[in-house]
């Protein structure tokens, strides 16, 4: 349910091609995320422009995906209105790095507010 591409400077871009992340696919989403990010050390940027709906299970899968990065940031792009709403309501918009779109994300040096560590 996602396409993986790597930019020349080592950013992994995961483009979701599902239009819903819900209870029917949340576990599958997390498993695919794990496969794609396994062994990748650089930034991870997820393009959510195709995702028109996300429920509690879907949001939970996003949190699980973030935890798989072991302390690194998970950057999200192009949140549609319904997805933006669930992130804002649960204040998860403070936990993930959210960009307007992939181009904006890639034009930055690293995750927003990343420590110099």
């Amino acid at each position: 349910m996602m396409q993986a591409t790597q930019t020349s400077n080592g950013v992994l871009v995961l483009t979701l091609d599902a239009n819903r992340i819900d209870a029917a696919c949340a576990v599958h989403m997390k498993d695919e995320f794990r496969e794609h990010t396994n062994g990748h050390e650089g930034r991870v940027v997820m393009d959510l422009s195709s995702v028109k709906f996300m429920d509690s299970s879907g949001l939970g899968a996003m949190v699980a995906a973030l935890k798989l990065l072991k302390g690194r940031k998970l950057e999200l792009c192009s949140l549609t209105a319904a997805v933006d709403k669930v992130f804002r309501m649960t204040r998860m918009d403070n936990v993930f790095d959210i960009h307007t779109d992939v181009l904006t994300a890639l034009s930055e040096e690293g995750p927003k507010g990343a420590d110099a560590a």
Partner: protein
Amino acid sequence: MNSSALMQRSFGAPRLQLEDTINADPLSIRDATVEIMARLTSEFPTHSEGIISTEIVLAEVLNNIAEHSYDDSNLGDIKISALCTDDLISIETRDYGIPMPGLTPPKTELEEIPMDIEDLPEGGFGWFFIRSLSSHMEYRRVGTQNIFCVQIATTSENIPDTAP
């Protein structure tokens, strides 16, 4: 049908009535949600905020029934009815699973975001969404049925204050 066709469109008059019975599994829930939302979206094309709220509430109510009432067995009927007026979308579900503990919907507050990412919750936002996005909700146990009613304002902008 004739009487409602003759009814003037006035405050509170029903605009759309839907009924559906589905099996309580995640794919059937997704299909039913998509189908009901397609009908509602064409009826309320300008009420995008209320439509988004309704889709979240509907999906979470159905997920809760599958997960808790039918204990993730993927077996059991859910009867869904929706009734819409100009300013309110009412959804009623009936199922034949186990009653809600304490015969009341859980009170879930949004917890503070923990400092450690490992402590972040991986779900359990369902009741928070339902409570936050609805104007009214009610649960009854009648015989072997769970009956749950929830109402969402079509013009709702019930986003809680997220200021830091």
